[in-house]
């Protein structure tokens, strides 16, 4: 992996903030875009823009073809069985809300149960809570221990004949834990319960094979894997996507409309009402190609090295508390500088050009688990370096002298 060559592909990394070179450690929130993606968005608008699936004219045909190529690119990237199992949405949040609504309408009734974990992002909590309120159903929570590991024994005990679906994150956005989703799915399937896997924080960091995982739904966002924002993916097994009703009505998702009755289009179009973010989808191809050209295993190795290096350097300081010590982690670290408010630390580190997230990271139950109001999250991407981590360590030392 030639890190300098990679960094040259991401123009924003040359930016300065407050006169300091930008150190971008907020990849868990969103990733920066390589030239290939930026150029794609520009080029498409300049030369190819046209609404898909509607016109008979040249541009529309061409756009439609590229859009369907994007579907195939995503299929191949996550190794789905069919391209029509790939639905384009607005993002992970949009995908989960869609499934919670649609699956919930058909299969969830009063007193039924939905199982999620204690380490979910709010996007994988709130849609299910809303469903529970609509249907008078109950939410059951798989706990995690202080290291950040899910209690699988407890998980199995939560399952019963009332359990309708399990929604679980592949990798935690706060603890970085990579969950044993394959094992979870195996257990769930023994009880005939489908599983939705939130892949927002895993897809950019490790190879994903939905057939091997055997998940029933898998969701992720384009902008977290170096692609455009506003585009996301909902993968569903064909049998489920044919079973559950569409979650939005509108153009393109219909077969025939009369005022008496409307029949729906086939997969995948029945889930893509209205004009989709086709440019987002088409330019997502460039992001996936970019990641593939480096190789996810190489990326994983590079990021693992960053994680190990950062963990060691933070531990060596002797006044850092790290939240999440799972043996299998993605490349992010949540931590606090002991006795210093994360907000104070974040404000000062920001002025040193280090971009990180402070607060609860949309995972307030994780903070509640540790009894804290928030923390600092450094999340690394494929373009980050150990030199940048050194700058973070220097910054933390400075914070310590100012507030300690």
């Amino acid at each position, binding site marked *: 992996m030639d890190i300098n060559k990679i960094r040259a592909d991401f123009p924003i990394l040359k930016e300065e903030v407050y006169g300091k070179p930008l150190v971008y450690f907020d990849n868990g929130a969103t990733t920066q875009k390589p030239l290939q993606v930026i150029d794609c968005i520009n080029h498409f608008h300049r030369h190819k823009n046209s609404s898909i699936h509607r016109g008979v004219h040249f541009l529309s045909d061409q756009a439609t073809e590229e859009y369907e190529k994007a579907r195939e690119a995503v299929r191949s990237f996550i190794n789905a069985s069919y391209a029509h199992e790939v639905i384009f949405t607005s993002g992970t949040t949009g995908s989960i809300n869609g499934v919670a609504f649609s699956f919930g309408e058909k299969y969830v009734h009063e007193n039924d149960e939905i199982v999620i974990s204690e380490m979910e992002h709010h996007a994988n909590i709130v849609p299910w809570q809303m469903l529970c309120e609509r249907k008078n159903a109950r939410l059951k929570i798989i706990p995690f221990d202080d290291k950040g590991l899910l209690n699988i024994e407890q998980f199995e005990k939560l399952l019963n004949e009332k359990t309708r679906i399990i929604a679980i994150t592949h990798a935690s956005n706060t603890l970085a834990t990579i969950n044993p989703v394959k094992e979870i799915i195996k257990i769930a399937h023994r009880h005939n319960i489908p599983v939705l896997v939130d892949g927002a924080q895993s897809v950019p960091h490790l190879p994903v094979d939905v057939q091997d995982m055997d998940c029933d739904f898998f969701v992720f966002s384009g902008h977290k894997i170096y692609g455009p924002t506003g585009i996301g993916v909902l993968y569903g097994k064909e049998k489920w996507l044919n079973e559950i009703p569409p979650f939005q009505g509108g153009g393109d998702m219909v077969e025939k409309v009369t005022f008496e009755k409307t029949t729906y289009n086939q997969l995948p179009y029945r889930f893509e009402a209205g004009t989709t973010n086709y440019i987002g989808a088409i330019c997502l191809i460039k992001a996936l190609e970019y990641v593939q050209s480096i190789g996810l295993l190489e990326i994983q190795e590079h990021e693992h090295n960053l994680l190990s290096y950062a963990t060691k350097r933070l531990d060596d300081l002797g006044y850092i508390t790290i939240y999440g010590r799972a043996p299998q982690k993605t490349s992010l670290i949540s931590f606090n500088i002991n006795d210093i408010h994360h907000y104070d630390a974040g404000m000062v580190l920001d002025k040193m050009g280090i971009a990180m997230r402070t607060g609860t990271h949309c995972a307030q139950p994780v903070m509640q688990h540790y009894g804290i109001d*928030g923390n600092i999250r450094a999340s690394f991407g494929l373009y980050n370096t150990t030199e940048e981590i050194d700058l973070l360590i220097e910054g933390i030392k400075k914070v310590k002298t*100012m507030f300690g």
Partner: protein
Amino acid sequence: MEAEIKSINDIQEEIIQEFEVYDDWMDKYNYIIELSRSLPVIDPKLKINCNLISGCQSKVWLNAVYTDGVIKYSADSDAIITKGIIALLIRVLSGRKPDEILNADLYFIDKIGLRQNLSPTRSNGLLAMIKQMKLYALAFKTKYEKTL
């Protein structure tokens, strides 16, 4: 007694001048940390939920009392930078008549480069704190000045 006759804007100008000597962010923050120690700290008995202005990132407790026609504020925060900025706000607004507080245009925050601390996305309670300070002013004005 000289401080008594200074207007809100006089004090704002004073603060702006104090900050002008710092061209480095770290010096500026060090000064804010120093200011945080000067804050009229709220009585611990008043650090209760009904005085808590909850932001996403840092907590602010605010209390106000009305005596002799003016409002006196006391406050605290769990974050030091927030506390330092509160100390500035109190310096500008505390001991003023409700009308002065209600009409105050707090431009000094922008001028000393701390505007980002007031953006809603920061959710650090400061914006809510200013609103709460003004709400107290309105409440006291309604309660005590209406019948005058």
